[in-house]
């Protein structure tokens, strides 16, 4: 079943079309990987799913993006509500200048949750889901910047999970990390997909092959094809996809 669906989606930076006529569905409880060479529009597409591009000057869109059937660009869906339901983790870990605890609690506090026990329970649960709890449970009041890069990224995932989103967008979440941290994040994504619809942008094709159920290949702002990851990587229907995954360009 599709959680989000995108129909005939165009995105523009000023006059420049960054995405042309993209139609795809984000399946629930699966990992959808977006692959393609730099500048192909993957990240623009990802950021269109939770309206993070709203802050970009001269950015505009055409087409339809829905979450559970509701147009996310319509007045029926306030961006603040949308972003609580569609969480995002960025390429570079970006914890706030707060303690580990407060980083995770932030998303709840801004929803007006003040009760200490509720916050503490939620923070613990989120940190456990992000496989970070055991490493930080004794120093929740330390600054988030005392953590390593990989731990910071898992903290950012925990922070996103704390608000209980339905869809999780990951923008190359492991690209700034070492191989060990990367594999922890990948295991984590496998665990999380039982509860969330996950969309991940990645430059690393092995990673896409390892962790995703569906793969969509983007090229020059167009979505060339999308399908089961195993099929895309073994028997792509478009020659451009084949050229890309066999390393002929990109």
């Amino acid at each position: 079943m599709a959680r989000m669906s995108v129909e005939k989606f165009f995105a523009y930076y000023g006059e420049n079309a960054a995405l042309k006529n993209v139609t795809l569905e984000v399946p629930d409880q699966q990992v959808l990987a977006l692959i393609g060479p730099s500048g192909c529009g993957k990240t623009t597409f990802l950021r269109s799913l939770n309206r993070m591009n709203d802050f970009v000057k001269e950015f505009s869109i055409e087409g339809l993006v829905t979450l559970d059937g509701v147009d996310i660009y319509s007045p029926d869906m306030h961006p603040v509500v949308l972003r609580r339901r569609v969480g995002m983790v960025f390429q570079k870990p970006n914890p706030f200048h707060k303690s580990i605890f407060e980083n995770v609690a932030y998303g709840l506090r801004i929803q007006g949750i003040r009760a200490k026990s509720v916050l503490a329970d939620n923070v613990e649960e989120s940190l456990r889901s992000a496989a970070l709890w055991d490493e930080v449970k004794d120093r929740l009041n330390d600054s988030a910047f005392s953590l390593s890069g990989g731990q910071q990224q898992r903290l950012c995932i925990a922070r996103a999970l704390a608000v209980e989103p339905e869809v999780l967008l990951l923008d190359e979440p492991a690209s700034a990390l070492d191989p060990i941290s990367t594999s922890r994040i990948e295991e984590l994504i496998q665990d999380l997909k039982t509860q969330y619809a996950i969309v991940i942008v990645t430059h690393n094709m092995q990673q896409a092959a390892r962790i995703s159920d569906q793969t969509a290949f983007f090229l020059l702002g167009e979505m060339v094809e999308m399908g089961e990851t195993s099929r895309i990587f073994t028997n792509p229907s478009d020659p451009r996809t084949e050229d890309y995954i066999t390393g002929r360009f990109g």
Partner: protein
Amino acid sequence: MGNEKKGSLSLFRRVRTVLLGFLTLAFFIVAVAPLLLIIWTAWDKGKSALNWSFVSTLPTGFPVGSQGGILNGIVGSIILVIVASSLSVPAGIWAGMYLWEEGTTPLARLIRLLSDLLLGVPSVVWGVVGFYVFSTSTGYGLHWGFSAMAGGLTLGFIMIPIVTRVTEQALRDVPLTFIEGSFALGASRWQTLKSIAIPSAMAGIGTGILLGVLNVLGQTAPLIFTNYYNTGVPSSLVGSQGAVGDLAMQIFIYIHEPSEILHTKAMAASLVLLGIVLFIDIGIRLMTWGSRKLYARVG
């Protein structure tokens, strides 16, 4: 140039490094020499007048000030800074936040332009405007007389653009990744500003307030037409009893008197003013540092 040993820089680059080092040192000396000279001169000429009663008593004797201390000036300067800050800190921070939020709208551009123009208005012009708005007893205006309120608010208006621009810049220096991280969790603009941007920009905003306060402490021209001077302590903030002493003005007046003792006291008063500047500087730094720590804990 290919004949140097591997691993060492070419002669040209080594000479350049040394030269630039000397140049840096020379500019440093040029920059700090005036400050050291001021402190030294004030200390050398004023130290004989410095004692506890100098900062704890009002000026008496003839000419006024030849006996007693400068308590009127200390109290007055503090009152003026408080009045000026109560206007300029909220207004300046609010305007800075607005410019950060609405950075590119035509209204924001206009405000930024006007703010820059205000920075360039000579302080004596501010004094004249302050006189017509606050002090004059005829025509339009608030008819507050020469008073702390009139002087302080005039100084406050001088301070607003400083606080505004520094606040805006401090907010702009907050990394975009923090801001996006907050929005991505479903925070509103206001929540992001309040919980993420402002705490991260606190040190910069503190610097803006500091610059404004120090500017106010050193101003005399705007006070000539709005407050002038008082040898006593005011009993009111407005009206005929509302004028306050002011350290900068006191120094200015003492230096103009043909009296050696007053010249000595003027020097001693500048030492006290420098001491207050240092005290406020450290105080604001501690406050901004403390508030960042607090925000980090309580979110």
